[in-house]
């Protein structure tokens, strides 16, 4: 299997890049296709009035946006194998506002199985600039044969 990053050993943490959730990124995710007439869609992820109508003081970014950061980190870690049985199980404990910076991280917890049946299990989370978790969960993915105790 092609190596998609430095080898990760049990207990080690891998970090994704910190990214700032700007309005333009939120509009790209939640505003609908760019060529849609009337773009962007107005909803509580894109429009201050829609957010106010829902009782919110400001736009809240869709949780899908930083879950996307987390899954992107899993793809960087496991490569195409992620798309052949990768599983992620998460909760979103906090909302995120425009302008916040979010960083995804994962830690290899264990590798189970043997031979070609090995599977890596990781803890995965995203933090805001204050170190608060805005996504928490676990993920697992098949990993190739030898090299138990490490994932590509």
């Amino acid at each position, binding site marked *: 299997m092609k190596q998609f990053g430095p080898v990760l050993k049990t207990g080690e943490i891998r970090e994704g*890049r910190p*990214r700032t959730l700007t309005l333009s*990124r*939120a509009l*790209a*995710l*939640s505003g609908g*296709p*760019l*060529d849609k007439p009337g773009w962007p*869609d107005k*909803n*509580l*992820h894109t429009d201050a009035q*829609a957010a106010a*109508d*829902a*009782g*919110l*003081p400001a736009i*809240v970014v*869709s*949780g*899908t*946006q930083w*879950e*996307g*950061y987390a*899954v*992107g980190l899993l*793809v*960087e870690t496991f*490569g*195409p194998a*992620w*798309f*052949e*049985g*990768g*599983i*992620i*199980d*998460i*909760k*979103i*404990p*906090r*909302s995120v506002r425009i302008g916040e910076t979010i960083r995804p991280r994962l830690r290899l917890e264990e590798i189970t199985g043997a031979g070609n049946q090995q599977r890596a299990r990781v803890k995965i989370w995203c933090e805001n600039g204050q170190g608060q978790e805005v996504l928490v969960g676990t993920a697992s993915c098949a990993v190739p044969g030898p090299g138990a105790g490490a994932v590509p």
Partner: protein
Amino acid sequence: MSLKFAHEMRRGDSYEPLVFVVTPDLNQQFLYAVEDFNPIFIEGRNGKPPFVHPVLLMHMSPRTRSPSYRQAPGMGSAFARDRSTYLHPAYVGSRLHVGWTITDTYEQRGRIYQDYVALIRDSDGRDILRRELASTFFSAGNGKSHSRGEPS
């Protein structure tokens, strides 16, 4: 298919499916949204087109994307849990089909909860992404409940 409001749906009910095509522009819009320019999503591999970014698949899989989804006036919904299994790559240019089925409905502490499964398939009938989602309903205006609002 049902024309019930979302909170009236019961186990076994399903929503009208959604079919959409992932154009290169649409995939790149979502790459921009999450600042993920991993070549796997931009360049084809082994004679195949680029992979569709998982964030696009996640974005299209909440039941609010169904043409038959109806929210009762004054109500909103939010995700409580989310388990996603990636079963096969989706390729840019492909036509994808999304279906939704309610798997359980229950009440806890006076709130209605619904579990449902979203399944994305490609035009060859391959399962691409299976999401098991738990959602809860709330009265609109209760901003605390929007940390993971189902996208409108």
